[in-house]
């Protein structure tokens, strides 16, 4: 019972946050609300017994993604979304059709929490029953992630590696193509580096050389 109560409450919070995100025009608020949305969904993951996922969502969604969005906001200095000039009728129609299709699709879906659904009866039992004996890992999520479906995780790692390569290619260079007005993110420190003299000089000439290339 208490689980259901928490579940409903969190879902309600999520719904309110999502609507607020659509309505808000101040991008800073939108990003903050997104962080809240993410944290709430992490809470919901915990309620639904997905501890690992909750951990990751809290670290990634509420953490890294939000920080990156804030950094982008600081770089673009665009705090207010423009009011669209045209009505969003077609998007609304598309969304309504998609949503209706999904609701239609839930009619035959197994009940929420049903222990006899196909997803609980097929494939899963072996993971539960034999993962300790086969992989020696009590955390089944780790066992599946790293061993049974380890190749997916290699793919996942490659995805994140791709993102690293992509960000380096797109904005890895220190200086923008077109000189921007001097920019200082408010979180940057003007602190005099401790290891200033020698190290720093060396580092900077190295960078300069790279720019000349």
């Amino acid at each position, binding site marked *: 019972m208490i689980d259901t109560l928490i579940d409903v409450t969190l879902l309600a919070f999520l719904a309110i946050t999502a609507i607020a995100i659509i309505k808000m025009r101040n991008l800073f608020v939108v990003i903050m609300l997104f962080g809240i949305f993410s944290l709430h969904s992490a809470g919901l993951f915990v309620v639904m017994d997905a501890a690992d996922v909750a951990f990751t969502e809290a670290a990634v*969604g509420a953490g890294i993604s939000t920080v990156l969005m804030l950094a982008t906001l600081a770089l673009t200095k665009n705090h207010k979304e423009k009011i669209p000039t045209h009505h969003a009728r077609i998007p609304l129609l598309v969304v309504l059709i998609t949503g209706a299709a999904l609701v239609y699709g839930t009619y035959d879906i197994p009940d929420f929490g049903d222990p006899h659904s196909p997803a609980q009866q097929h494939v899963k039992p072996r993971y539960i029953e034999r993962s300790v004996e086969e992989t020696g890992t009590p955390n089944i999520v780790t066992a599946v992630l790293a061993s049974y479906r380890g190749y997916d995780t290699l793919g996942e790692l490659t995805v994140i590696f791709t993102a690293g390569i992509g960000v380096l290619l797109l904005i890895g260079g220190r200086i923008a193509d077109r000189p921007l007005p001097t920019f200082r993110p408010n979180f940057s420190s003007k602190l005099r580096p401790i290891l200033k003299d020698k190290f720093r000089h060396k580092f900077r000439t190295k960078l300069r050389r790279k720019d000349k290339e």
Partner: protein
Amino acid sequence: MIDIIISHYNYWVVIMLMMAGFYTVISRGNLIKKITGINIFQTSVFLMYISIGYVSEGTPPIIAEGFTKYSNPLPHVMILTAIVVGVSTTALGLALVVRIKEAYGTIEEDEIHDQDMSL
């Protein structure tokens, strides 16, 4: 009727959340807001997956004494992977937004379009 609400409300709210995100992506012209929309869309899909794996009165799938009912670990694993894919996409999208701002001076789709057309 009540039965079906109790057994499906979770999916329905999640679908509503998905559509809120989807709507934000396709109706908004601000590039950062679009990325937020994508993230909400994806996070809601993650919620759907975890709902599929949920067992009432179960515990997280970490084997321990005294528990027999565990939630399904496979959706968790899939979602862990999907979260990583999501954050990678977000990082790339935001990097593109930064570059677009440098090149166009704006991150509003309409204004970018106008600039491209005026050339």
